[in-house]
């Protein structure tokens, strides 16, 4: 089994040799040298593998296919088969995955314990999520990337768990600097949405702003282009499906907890009459500093009243043209052992007046605007070899119903009060991929139906 990739690699090396026919002589010479060295390395490795059959850290490189035709003259195929260990530094555990196939598995998970201080009987322990991800390489420029998630441990029609595909897209790189994606993708807004593994954020729960305003984990189906530039700007633009305002439930608390989270479609037979567009940029031209922002916009009315699923004589939807506009800006600065970040996001939904008129008096009308922001500081206070202790503090302000469209006779809904939350706690990294978390959250306004109320949290997260 394990010899097959090596054989393929050798074969690929031969192909690469052939493909170099047009390279200039000097370069050719050095390349041949390189290949000789590689072959020698391969031979020694094969011998070594016979000797150490059970060594887990050996990783044979995947077979690299010959370079695509049309490659500009002068550029040569990548070194076809440089064998190496996956990754193991002195004094560090081998985290090498034997990369003997072109499919790789990875994953993360999170277990939480929440204990409201005023209602201790409501304490909950939960296996919040377990995620398996995969990456399969079709050829050197094309791969499929997917993430499968189970939430709340048990999933069935009678349990509260959910089983979902969180990402699933094919990516084709057109160069080292840019490429295209198509499929179910994470919307690149905010700091968390694309990087939501528990080791990546401070505190047991993800921050409220990036749940209530930016509905992490937010994904849509569509196509996108992405790239990076040498001066540190990375960009990502796309055209995707969008939320469905027809799903709004004015009787439920969910729209108050997260307006967009309550109407996202997750590519589940998603209504797709109107495409949405997004654009996001990040600048990381100075190491340790990240400045970025993004916008998402689309019609979320989806021409619902013209759909043929309802009875055309009676079905009606008064917000066919409603449009969502969500913007976001963020900065993260990591000087030395410190980690500071700040984020602000604001969204608006247009044409909600007639829809809210039909909901008048209901607890949760559609907001006209909603916003939130936070500042956060963390300090890598203690480090022992692989372990570290990082206390942090975060202050958040957010409002999921900052304004509502006016209604006749003064019967409209007043704006919600702005919630403010302090979170203080610490992440203890047993190693960079396993984290224990503890924090205390202080809410300005308690709201039992949304789970807002001072509480004490414990968590465990991992990533591999």
């Amino acid at each position, binding site marked *: 089994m394990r010899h097959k990739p090596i054989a393929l690699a050798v074969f690929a090396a031969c192909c690469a040799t052939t493909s170099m026919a047009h390279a200039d002589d000097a*370069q050719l010479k*050095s*390349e041949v040298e390189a290949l000789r*060295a590689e072959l020698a*390395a391969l031979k*020694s490795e094969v011998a*070594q*593998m016979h000797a150490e059959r059970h*060594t887990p*850290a050996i*990783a044979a*490189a995947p077979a690299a296919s010959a370079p695509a035709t*049309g*490659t*500009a003259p002068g*550029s040569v*195929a*990548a*070194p076809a088969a*440089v064998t*190496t*260990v996956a*990754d*193991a*530094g*002195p004094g560090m555990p*081998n*985290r*090498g995955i034997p*990369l003997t196939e072109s499919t*790789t598995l990875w994953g993360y998970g999170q277990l939480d314990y929440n204990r409201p201080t005023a209602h201790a009987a409501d304490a909950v322990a939960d296996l919040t999520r377990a995620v398996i*991800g*995969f*990456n399969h*390489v079709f050829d050197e*420029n094309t*791969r499929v*990337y997917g993430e499968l998630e189970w939430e709340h441990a048990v999933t069935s029609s009678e349990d509260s768990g959910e089983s979902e595909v969180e990402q699933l897209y094919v*990516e084709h*790189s*057109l*160069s*080292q600097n840019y490429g295209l*994606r198509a499929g179910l993708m994470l919307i690149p807004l905010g700091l968390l949405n*694309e990087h939501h593994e528990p080791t*990546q954020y401070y505190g047991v729960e993800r921050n409220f702003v990036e749940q209530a305003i930016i509905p992490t984990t937010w994904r849509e189906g569509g*196509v996108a*282009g992405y790239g*990076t530039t*040498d001066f*540190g700007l990375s960009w990502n633009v796309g*055209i995707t499906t969008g939320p469905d305002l027809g799903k709004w439930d004015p009787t439920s608390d969910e729209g108050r907890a997260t307006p967009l989270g309550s109407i996202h479609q997750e590519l589940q037979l998603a209504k797709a009459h109107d*495409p949405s567009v997004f654009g996001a940029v990040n600048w*990381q031209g100075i*190491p*340790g500093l*990240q400045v970025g922002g993004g916008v998402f916009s689309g019609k979320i009315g989806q021409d619902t009243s013209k759909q043929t699923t309802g009875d055309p004589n009676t079905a009606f939807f008064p917000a066919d043209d409603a449009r969502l506009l969500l913007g976001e800006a963020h900065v*993260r600065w*990591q000087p030395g052992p410190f980690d500071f970040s700040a984020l602000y996001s604001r969204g608006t939904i247009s044409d909600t007046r007639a829809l809210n008129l039909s909901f008048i008096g209901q607890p949760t009308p559609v907001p006209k605007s909603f916003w939130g922001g936070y500042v956060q500081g963390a300090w890598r206070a203690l*480090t022992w070899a692989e372990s570290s202790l990082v206390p942090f503090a975060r202050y958040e302000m957010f409002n999921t119903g900052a304004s509502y469209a006016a209604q006749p006779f003064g019967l409209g809904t007043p704006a919600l009060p702005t919630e403010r939350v302090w979170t203080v706690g610490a992440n203890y990294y047993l190693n960079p991929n396993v984290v224990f978390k503890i924090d205390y959250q202080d809410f300005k306004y308690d709201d039992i139906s949304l789970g807002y109320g001072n509480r004490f949290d414990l968590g465990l997260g991992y990533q591999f």
Partner: protein
Amino acid sequence: MAELARARWLLPLGLLALPAFHAAYATQYMSVGEAQKAAFADAGEFRAMPPLDAAVASDLGAPGWSPQMFEARAGDQRLGWLIIDRVIGKAELITYALALDSAGTVKSLEILDYRETHGGEVRLPAWRKQFVGKTAQEPVRIDNDIKNISGATLSSRHITEGVHRLLQLHERVLRAG
């Protein structure tokens, strides 16, 4: 009107497809040869070095590890070394070239091949510049003297660990030879 409605999806899709025409001209990689020239413009010869001794590799915490090593020479003068190695980013291998001068100080770090769907920011020149001037006597640790990249945590961590290992390799093997 109907055409406009159709254009709602098709036009932007078409625009997105435009870069595909450019694909044929795109530079896909920096080759080993290009990396050699970029790091040691004055070198007349890149002498391939024999594979790493298995015992040394194991000793450095990486059994079976065998980076590709070249000695850069100009006449009888040794200019330094160029080492090609790979680490895993999140799911796929990153190929990089580390150039050391004759004293074992990092001269440059180039990413030859990065294909993964996220974390490509390790290619940013500003980030790679952090390694220039590093020696085996320095920590070369992420979140210590090397800043991580948010959004490319694993890639930046693993490359840093790889450079750290190559500096130790220089200390153990290359300097003496």
